[in-house]
């Protein structure tokens, strides 16, 4: 039983090596001066099509964007949980279908609530 899952351990090891390399390698290369470092004021300026930025960027923009973000997150999380069920549709049978429908129903309540509160309408 266990042998079926040994390859998962190799993945974990590979993941750690990759993560370590991804963080360690730049530091190492920086130490050996392979990665040139040449800071200057212009480089740390904000890039805006070759122009200097004007005006403040920390502004109050329309609140509707925030509503959209919230609703997107809820639906996205739902889709993530649908995915493993969808992959094993046949083997899981009817009971899984009912549980998934309950799950979708719960999220649908939130969605309908937002719809009724006119969160999706744009002024």
């Amino acid at each position, binding site marked *: 039983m266990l042998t079926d899952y040994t390859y998962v351990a190799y993945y974990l090891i590979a993941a750690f090596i990759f993560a370590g390399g991804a963080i360690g390698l730049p530091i190492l290369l920086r130490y050996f001066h392979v990665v040139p470092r040449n800071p200057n004021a212009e480089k740390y300026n904000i890039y805006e099509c*070759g122009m200097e930025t*004007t005006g403040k960027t920390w502004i*109050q*923009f*329309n609140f509707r964007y925030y509503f959209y973000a919230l609703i997107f997150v809820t639906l996205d999380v739902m889709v993530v949980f649908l995915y493993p069920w969808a992959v094993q549709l046949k083997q899981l049978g009817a009971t899984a279908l009912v549980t998934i429908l309950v799950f979708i129903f719960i999220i649908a309540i939130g969605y309908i609530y937002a719809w009724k509160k006119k969160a999706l309408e744009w*002024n």
Partner: protein
Amino acid sequence: MALKTETFLVNAGPQHPSTHGVFRMRFILDGEVIQDVEPVFGYLHRGIEKLAEGLTYSQDMVFTDRLDYLASMTNNQAYAVAVEKLAGIQVPERAEYLRVIMAELMRISSHLMGVGFLTNDIGAFLTPLLYMYREREKILDLFDMVCGQRLTYNYMRIGGVSQDIPEEFLPALKKFIDTLPRFIQEYEQLLATNEILLVRTKNVGILTKEAAINYSTAGPVLRASGVKWDIRKAEPYSVYSRFNFEIPTGSKGDVYDRYRIKIEEMKQSIGIIKQAMEQLPQGEIQAKIPKVLRPPKGEAYGRIEGPKGELGFYLVSDGATNPYRLHIRPPSLLNLTPLRELVIGVKIADAMAIFGSIDICMGEVDR
């Protein structure tokens, strides 16, 4: 209870993937909706009109290639027509027909680029453009065969054409003209019924008929608003009066109409080239003009129908060898005049689609 929102200034600046060259639009945004836009020009202003006053008439032909570098042949033809009108030169028949063939090929190539970059701005990044680049490469091969250059041809001379076409040019042109309708049909399949394109272009950036006339726009932008005005029919220059072709006009003047007109005009240009190939007479290709051209004192305005609109050259001569004043009527700059009215109150994504549909070329805007 709506909360206060603040505006935000952003530059769709000189170095921007979808501003067709170095053109800057200073947007003042409220969220995504454009409050105000200020187009800023001049990043490619090379002062051609000042430099042209220092060189002789035939040397100025070289500047015309760099004006609208997507349609250099039509620039050459416009300048040649203007100087011939000023100096009263009669161009031989064969040269006129060669000029028409080259100008129509250039119109097809410029419209290919216009539609290609419009689909780029709408979101189909590079796929339709690479399809259309495939045809443009064929056209550039034809030009390469005739005058040895791919982009800045300097092919037309005052009073005629610089070289005659080699023998293998006509068969190659015939092959290209026979295959091109199939490719245009391929784009139709790819784009005309494409849901995204329809949603992004229908009823976006509507320029009414009166506004189009009042803003003195020209070419596809004017015809898309329903005005039937094409210099090839209104004031037929060279031998255009001998060909029969229609002028496609749109009805609403939105981005979709401007796109449709470019596709239709390509088909019309194929028809013109076919007729020109049949009627191509033999004969010499360059009128006898003095080595150093000294046009009589006076002024003249020669104009042609370029791919982007009416391209004209206003020449004032005081009898010397170099023009006293050379003014270029820039169709791209005049097509951009209604930009501010079209774009205010629209979202940024649509603004880029509207700007792309106007199809400008910065070399001609800034001169």
